[in-house]
């Protein structure tokens, strides 16, 4: 994901002189260092000072620049929420709501693994979607990261995009065209809707295949755009399948599952069961053990399959 982010940034940077990049001693990790090699005047490494980075990005955006500020998720919404709210989201002049800052975080969720619970950001979606004017995105794979990075550069407004640390299964083709506000129907089905985001999209697809063999027809939605949420597609899904299972690498309180539940509860209420981290913290897991850590919190195709079976029974 990070590699595609870095590649997209370089392309955007070549097209638009106003694009600048900020990093907090994480430019190598976030793959933004390449941007700095090509545009040394337009990459600002501010050191381990995330609040400073966000406020600087706001000042740059106010002055007409399009700043991409990147670091690990735990240090962005997890640390700099005041700067994000007051310096980026709040300033509004005429119809420009919030400043044109793009916050791109890596290392979201449990799949961070080895660094442990202190580094596994499980609350960022809840934090970010409660802040007005922000668009909140959790793409499923590197192709969607690439596409959304290009979109963020073109569309005015504050954005938060969360990426995972680990390599992700490809869900989309290269050159996919996904847009904020629109969920993607990756698979159609009639018995249950599985709404996923980030790395759980691949799990949802795998679960749907398994269930298909058992005669359970699942619709799979990639709800990468958590805010704005796609109310229309969700209402159609609720009407069509009558039950929704959500799964995400996030606290079950306030995350994508909550957003989906809020949406359908005011359009076509159906049962919404949320799979995710059940209001607790994670812990260390070596790379090979990450699937096991995720599974302990119900984030596996096996558990998704089980949950759907229970729902449709």
């Amino acid at each position, binding site marked *: 994901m990070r590699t595609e982010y870095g590649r997209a940034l370089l392309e955007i940077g070549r097209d638009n002189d106003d694009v*600048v990049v900020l990093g907090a001693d994480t430019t190598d990790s976030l793959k933004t260092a390449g941007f700095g090699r090509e545009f040394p*005047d*337009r990459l*600002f490494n*501010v*050191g381990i*000072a995330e*609040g*400073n*980075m*966000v*406020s*600087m*990005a*706001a*000042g*740059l*955006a*106010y*002055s*007409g*620049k399009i*700043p991409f500020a990147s670091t690990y998720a735990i240090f962005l919404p997890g640390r700099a929420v*005041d*700067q994000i709210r*007051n*310096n980026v989201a*709040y*300033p*509004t*002049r005429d119809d420009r709501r919030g400043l044109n800052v793009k916050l791109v975080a890596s290392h979201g969720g449990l799949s961070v693994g080895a660094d442990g619970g202190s580094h596994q950001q499980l609350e960022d979606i809840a934090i970010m979607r409660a802040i007005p004017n922000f668009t909140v995105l959790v793409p499923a794979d590197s192709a969607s990261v690439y596409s959304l990075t290009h979109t963020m550069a073109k569309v005015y407004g504050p954005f938060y995009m969360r990426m995972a640390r680990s390599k992700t299964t490809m869900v989309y083709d290269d050159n996919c065209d996904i847009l904020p506000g629109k969920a993607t129907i990756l698979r159609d089905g009639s018995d249950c809707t599985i709404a996923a985001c980030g790395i759980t999209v691949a799990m949802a697809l795998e679960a749907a295949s398994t269930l298909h063999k058992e005669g359970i027809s699942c619709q799979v939605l990639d709800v990468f755009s958590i805010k704005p949420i796609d109310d229309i597609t969700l209402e159609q899904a609720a009407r069509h399948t009558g039950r929704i299972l959500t799964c995400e690498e996030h606290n079950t309180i306030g995350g994508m599952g909550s957003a989906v539940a809020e949406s359908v509860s005011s359009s076509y209420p159906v049962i919404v069961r949320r799979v995710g981290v059940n209001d607790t913290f994670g812990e260390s897991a070596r790379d090979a053990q990450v699937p096991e850590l995720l599974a302990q919190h119900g984030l596996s195709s096996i558990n998704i399959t089980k949950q759907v079976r229970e729902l449709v029974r």
Partner: protein
Amino acid sequence: MDSRYSIIRRNTLKARALVIRATAAAGSGHPGGSFSMAEILGCLFYKHMTYDTNNPLWKDRDRLVLSKGHAAPGLFSHLAISGFIQESEVETLRSLGSRLQGHPDMKCPGVEFCGGSLGTGLSYSVGMALAARLDGLSSRIYTVVGDGESNEGQIWEATMTAAKFKLDNLTVILDRNYVQQDSYTEGVMPLDAATKSSDPVAARGDPTAWRTSDKWRAFGWHVIEVDGHRIEQIDSAITESKRISGKPTIIISRTVKGKGVQHMEDNPKWHGKAPSKSMVPIILDELKSQSLVAPSIIAGDMTRLDLEVKRCDEAGSDYIHMDVMDGAFVPVVTFDHEKLKELRPLTDIPFDSHLMISEPVKHVKRYAEAGSDIITVHAEACNVSEFGEIHDYLRSVGVGVGIAINPKTSLPVWLKEFVPTLDQVIVMSVVPGYSGQSYIPESHKKTRDVIQSLNKMGFNGVVEADGGVNVSNVADCFDDGARVFVGGSSMVGQPDMRRAIDDIKNSISYARRRMLLHRAHILGGSDMVNNWIALHEVGEQHNVLHQIAQECGVL
């Protein structure tokens, strides 16, 4: 040239009055921190910043970031005076639907930063400075940071960042007022070293305790220290900051929280509290009655005027009064513009040049170019067209305009059209030409009459008492309405000039307090007097006022 001292001073005074109007109308807000930075913003808005009120987002403008956002009324007052908003709009402060939010908001034209959450404005300014550099703009970024705000770690993150990127287009002004919400900064979280005294603001007066500048210097900044209520010092520091290349500049501006309203000064209670509406008329009178002393150097050693200037500087003079005499308009010769030019580099203190010369219209340019901040010419030495020329010229070059009248002269009838834009009127209380004469007693009544006529014509300037003013008559001169006091033998002529000036300032202060107590009495009898006195909590003020009230029979 381009001193703009008079306009900065006048507008700053007006800004303070607007802060009182706004916060009193709102019933809340932060007057203390608005007042401590009033002169700082005055120097920025009326001299150093380039902006266009018709096009607030003009690309090439300079930018002001008020990082200590709670001082919003202070910012709004200057935005009103400079024309971004109407003056009457300040009374909508904090009201539902107002563009003037409790903290600066981009709803209000001229606001560049939504402040409120402390500690972030400097980082934001760093972003702006980087953007300006990338865009090749000559714009400067001016950022006002609070000392309480400096508790925030992010201030120091930004400090390192600005130095790393060598942001010489960034000038930060620290409003070092020694007070934050809970209490005195040095008790809550010290920036300076501990002082021996238990006085919570002793560090302000004790240079050996100052550590704040060391901190910034260690972070790689160019550091300038000023008295943050001396317009000329702030002005000169900002000018210096524009010349510094390769590093950002911090101006450590030592100020008094609540400056201008005695009961608010240095009292943490007035960090975030509005004055009650009933007190507003007295507070406005207090603001209007700020006074200055202007020692006249010709009362000293005429052969070493350079030393006299230095004495004035060290003695706490507000102006240095320059009595220029040409041997024609008056029988004596003192010095001319060449001498003025020679003395100018010795001090930042404003030169209050009083031209007792014939045909000033022919010479005034030289005195402006020599570095006068205010130039006063004699009514007896010009006609309406000459004075018009002088007036227009001085205004165009940012020098204050004054007119003087001799004891036997009345205000010229032709002065009327100039009155609203006059900065100063000198009512001579001796016949000019010689130092050491006694005050002509009739001058008291004349001064009062002159002020009355001037006020009817929309006067916004100050009246200067000049001639025989000393410690025993200065209070009466204050009562007449004069607000600048020239002293020759009573100041420069005294061996201990600082003490002489302090004594005169104390007499003025006594008269001012007495005037305000009378005002309180007129507004609401002894109850109001007691309420007014009760506001004065810091130090001995309460007892002093009580005594004055008894002496003048309002209690």
